[in-house]
């Protein structure tokens, strides 16, 4: 990707506020003691409050399930807002967090999932700092089991046995311990080996990487590493060199960029740059004004923030959706694909949702389905290797991103990517998937998104497709698909995720993909009636027949692809996974 393409952005902008960006922006302003500069903090509070579900937890996007990640980001950002502009945070969130506590002492991202250190960190900070409660004593045994043989800390005890240490896992674990004990309790790890592993991640240039063997320093890793060391009352080997490397990431216009050679300042870079300098005790006074100005320029009309100037804040899902719906022509399509292919972090070869964020499985599947890396065999091989060697969990499944516990949406997406990219690493990983899928079976032929969850149409079809791709099927899966489709078929048209009364676009899309995958016949009139019920006046598509307005680019893409499937050419449906 060229410098100009990154600077100007050839992708498509959704215009939506993003929770992760909003948290990073508010936190950065808070560290600089400048939340008073927010022009209308109550609109930020309104955006954050809109992410709360009726179960008391918070979700990344409206309509998604609550998770620990979103619950911490929302509650912490609201707590950082000036008095009078905060939403109500109270016991419902605390009760939801306790519902993710695992008997092994860790916490899960959502009820039923395995514990991981991301979720444990978010849960402990929410409970202690937001709700004023204490985590369970068993937490410390769970944290102790994260130390790998090389001295670093891993995503989970099972990851530690495999030796997968990461600077982010170190930061999350050490901060969970520090938050729970006030930094005063006994350290559950070998201090010398842990400190040594963290310090070894610093390069001669002064920045840090996430893992042993990574080739490019980045600001995110640098922030996490110096923060982890700070909580241990330790410093990097070369603290001055680290400060200089961080300051080299600052552009004249006022904010930080993520790694050498990446030209676009973004909100997470501002968050990491300010956070790291603060942890290192370096002065911030001379950079505060331009950083605040840059961060405030990332506000959207919805009240929250996106990752860069809103008019240029393209994202991979929206861009892929436009490509899949055929909205581009000529050079625009080529440029958009090249932009998507550039959304890859150094050292991590999947595609991310937004530039500079960690690679995500679902986004990678959408990008590949839209045509990214089609003529790049090496790029596809790197993606297969990333899935097989970096992010497949010890239970055989996959989470949204590295270190996050497994779920069926991500596992199904990974199975489709591995099937598409091929190769021997892919074959080995596909075999592991069946083991995870089996843990999500709630009754013969019925599956949930996570172990212990409720069975749904989509999770069941995703599970059966993943088994099909991994060659773990027993030959009767086609019949099982037929059974579950019959159970969730809505009489008037479409398919319902739960029961058989309220059809939705995503479930109906998944139903047709599954039927096609297993060679089952389906009723075109039934699909036509459903599409008529969700088509909107502006030629878009709503997520359910209940809404009169388009559900946005992703809904429009799925609806358009179903129309193309019904067309005389019967265009195949890409096996997209979303939730």
């Amino acid at each position, binding site marked *: 990707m060229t410098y100009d393409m990154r600077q100007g952005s050839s992708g498509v902008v959704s215009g939506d506020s993003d929770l992760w960006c909003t948290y990073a922006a508010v936190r950065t302003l808070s560290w600089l003691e400048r939340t008073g500069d927010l022009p209308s903090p109550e609109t930020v509070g309104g955006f954050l409050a809109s992410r709360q579900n009726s179960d008391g937890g918070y979700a990344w996007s*409206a309509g998604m399930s609550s998770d620990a990640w979103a619950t911490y980001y929302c509650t912490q950002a609201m707590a950082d807002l000036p008095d009078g502009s905060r939403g109500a945070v109270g016991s419902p969130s605390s009760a939801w967090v306790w519902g993710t506590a695992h008997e092994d002492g860790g916490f899960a991202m959502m009820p039923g999932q395995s514990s991981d250190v991301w979720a444990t960190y978010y849960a402990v900070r929410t409970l202690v700092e937001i709700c004023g409660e204490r985590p369970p004593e068993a937490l410390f045994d769970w944290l102790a089991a994260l130390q790998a043989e090389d001295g670093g800390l891993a995503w989970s005890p099972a990851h530690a046995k495999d030796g997968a240490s990461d600077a982010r896992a170190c930061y999350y674990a050490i901060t969970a311990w520090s938050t729970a004990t006030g930094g005063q309790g006994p350290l559950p790890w070998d201090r010398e080996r842990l400190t040594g592993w963290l310090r070894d991640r610093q390069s001669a240039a002064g920045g840090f990487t996430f893992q042993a063997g990574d080739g490019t320093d980045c600001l995110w890793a640098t922030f996490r590493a110096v923060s982890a060391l700070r909580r241990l009352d330790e410093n990097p080997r070369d603290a001055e060199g680290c400060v200089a490397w961080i300051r080299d990431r600052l552009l004249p216009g006022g904010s930080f960029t993520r790694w050498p050679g990446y030209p676009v300042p973004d909100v997470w870079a501002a968050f990491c740059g300010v956070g790291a300098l603060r942890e290192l005790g370096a002065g911030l006074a001379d950079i505060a004004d331009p950083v605040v100005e840059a961060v405030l320029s990332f506000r959207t009309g919805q009240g929250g923030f996106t990752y860069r100037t809103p008019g240029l804040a393209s994202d991979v899902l929206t861009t892929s959706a436009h490509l899949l719906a055929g909205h581009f022509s000529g050079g625009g399509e080529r440029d958009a694909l090249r932009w998507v292919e550039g959304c890859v972090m150094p050292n991590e070869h999947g595609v991310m949702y937004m530039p500079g964020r960690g690679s995500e499985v679902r986004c990678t599947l959408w990008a590949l389905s839209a045509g990214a890396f089609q003529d790049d065999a090496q790029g596809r091989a790197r993606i297969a290797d990333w899935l097989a060697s970096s992010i497949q969990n010890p239970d055989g499944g996959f989470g949204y991103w590295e270190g996050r516990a497994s779920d069926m949406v991500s596992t199904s997406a990974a199975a489709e990517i591995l099937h598409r990219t091929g190769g021997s690493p892919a074959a080995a990983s596909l075999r592991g998937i069946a083991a995870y899928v089996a843990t999500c079976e709630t009754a013969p032929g019925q599956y949930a998104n996570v172990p212990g969850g409720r069975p749904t149409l989509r999770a069941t079809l995703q599970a059966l497709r993943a088994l099909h791709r991994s060659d773990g099927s027993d030959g009767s899966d086609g019949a099982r698909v037929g059974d579950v489709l019959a159970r969730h078929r809505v009489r008037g048209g479409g398919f319902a995720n739960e029961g058989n009364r309220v059809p939705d676009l995503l479930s109906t899309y998944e139903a047709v993909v599954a039927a096609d995958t297993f060679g089952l016949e389906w009723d075109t009139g039934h699909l036509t009636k459903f599409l008529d019920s969700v088509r909107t006046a502006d030629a878009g598509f709503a997520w359910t027949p209940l809404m009169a307005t388009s559900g946005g680019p992703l809904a429009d893409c799925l609806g358009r692809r179903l129309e193309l499937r019904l067309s005389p050419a019967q265009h195949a449906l890409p096996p997209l996974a979303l939730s």
Partner: protein
Amino acid sequence: MHTADQTEISTRVLALLEKRFGDTVLSLAPDADLSDALPGFDSLAALEYVTAVESEFDFEVDFVGDDVRYWFSTLVRTSEYVRERVEDQAA
């Protein structure tokens, strides 16, 4: 059904909305679009609204055949839909 019954239906539908959205609904115009007039009236809230109406008046909505996004878009349309369904049941 008599006019008085229609008023009673509207009152009962309004009470369902008030339970979910609080005092905001007290100033709701009968023909106001609910998704514009009520903050947070998203697809999930709309689903809860329809199922609350089903439960209150003891009938089932056909989510595809009944054009729910039209009939449940305003208070007055919902009341009209309910009146017709109640009449159908009584016939």
